[in-house]
């Protein structure tokens, strides 16, 4: 997973941003930023594998769909994810996420992501060729 992630400020919620040389990489880094809302991703024993797929009319809606698919898996599989591999085919995404079951008795978990919003939703390539994928997540 080459690239980096960061959080950016929003009045009530949290902005997530992934930056990488490839679009796939930017999506992977944004997913790490999503996990980091809840827990330090480096603290996870990311061994269990979950496959995800989604499709949307454009890259920006696909980013929101990707994050929402992860939020759904986090909530229903009760897992936290620390590693991702994304494949894109146009506006179709297939991915593998590796994580571990939530263990509230052993981990300090901050806040639950409710959903990825379309606020500050953006997928773009900058002048240096780096891909930047970001949006605000409702918590």
């Amino acid at each position, binding site marked *: 997973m080459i690239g980096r992630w960061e*959080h*950016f*400020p*929003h*009045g*009530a*919620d*949290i902005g997530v941003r992934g930056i990488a040389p490839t679009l796939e990489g930017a999506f992977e880094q944004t997913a790490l930023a999503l996990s980091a809302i*809840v827990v330090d991703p480096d603290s996870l024993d990311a061994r269990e594998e979950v496959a995800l797929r989604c499709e*949307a*009319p454009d890259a920006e*809606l696909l980013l*929101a*769909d990707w994050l*929402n698919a992860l*939020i*759904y898996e986090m*909530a*229903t599989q*009760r897992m936290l994810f620390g590693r991702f591999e994304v494949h894109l085919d146009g506006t179709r995404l297939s991915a593998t996420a590796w994580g571990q079951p*939530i*263990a*509230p008795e052993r981990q*300090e*978990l*901050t*806040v*639950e992501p*409710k*959903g*990825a*919003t*379309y*606020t500050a*939703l953006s997928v773009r390539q900058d002048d240096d060729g780096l891909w930047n994928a970001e949006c*605000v997540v*409702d*918590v």
Partner: protein
Amino acid sequence: MMETKTLQRKSDCEWRIPLTGKMRVPAVIYATESLIQDMDEKVREQITHVAMLPGIVKAAYAMPDAHWGYGFPIGGVAAFDPEDGVISAGGVGFDVSCGVRTLHTGLTVRQIEAVKERLADALFQTVPAGLGSRGKIHLNPAAMKAMLRGGALWAVEQGYGTPDDLDFVEEGGCMEGAVPDEVSEHAVKRQQDEMGTLGSGNHYLEVQRVAEILDEATARAFGLAHDEVVVSIHCGSRGLGHQIGTEYLKRMVVTAASHGIELPDRELACAPIRSELGQSYLGAMRSAINCALANRQIITHLVRQAFASVFPEIELPLIYDVSHNTCKVERHDVDGETRELYVHRKGATRAFGPGHAALPAAYQQTGQPVIIGGTMGTASHVLVGTSEGEALSFSSSCHGAGRAMSRHEALKRWQGRALVDSLAAEGIIIKTRTYRGVAEEAPGAYKDVDAVADAAHESGLSRRVARLTPLICIKG
């Protein structure tokens, strides 16, 4: 920071954004000059965009606690005509029907102080709170549908609380028009372990002292007396509501053009009320309202169990339950004509004045209790709906302190453990599973809730009745 230069000041607490560009109606912000100056410029941008939506009636309103949301600002109110209006998932929010209910304890502060730590432990052990906590109630598909149709009424039928509670919940505890079949399997699955859980973030359960009475007669009608103790529960429709918000936001974005809707911003995704998608969302969103009402009813039952472990035979009757993130069909006066409207309130409280048919007999003379939540270190407020609120904001008021800074900034400024210790020194017990979460929710990260309540009072949206201060806070 919002510039006031381009706003028209109508009174001390009313600011108007006149019609410009594609706005169909003006926008109105209710706030003091100081609150306006502290508001994010995004509030002006978002409420202006709301004023551009098809079928909006009279004006788009921002409450004194308004802050940057998605689509609508949080603290945004807008009403739409049933024939040519729209319904917006972003205008309701992800946490559908998030709200607050407040219970009497009949106990004095002195009685609580004697057992405070034991009571805090009992509440923390009994009410599942924080990310990763699970409820003990697991509903099969038939029971889930019954819950989505019945709300708090369903919960009472299952033994969680008493029929008397329902008189003091909006809609009598059961939102009509819920269509559980419009709720996706994903949304149902997300709710499977979450009934009777508080959630995380700004959700909480607080034991509060009635620290100040500002309107004796109304306080008496609400059963509030100085130095008595109440309990407030703040939470919503949990995973089910979040998933419904997520799914319909996308469907509304994708289909907006086919409905002939030009969106000033994607976040304002909406559908005509009369469209198949609009009706589908209404059925799902009303189911989520019932989920939130059932959830708060079950938590009420758990709170009563925890209190009974310390104070046997205690009853904890309900003062009132208000919902914040909703779209409801209501009748309102528009230029002398009574019209049926679809009123979106996102981070805003319904605030009916005296004599409204929707209020229980006990509050017919006073108006509706309006409960404004504070932070774990600051006051909460009880206000009452006014007759003039009808003309000001379709009988709506604010819902809480509203954030003054991002979570990111709060984490830089505060440490959770130190905050818990300093609040303990002030006599406030905080029970939490996340110190980082406490830092994100630091009292200093929010606006001055007293100033917000004052602005609601001064503007006439609702009138101050009582001020509550925290004794115990179970953080979500």
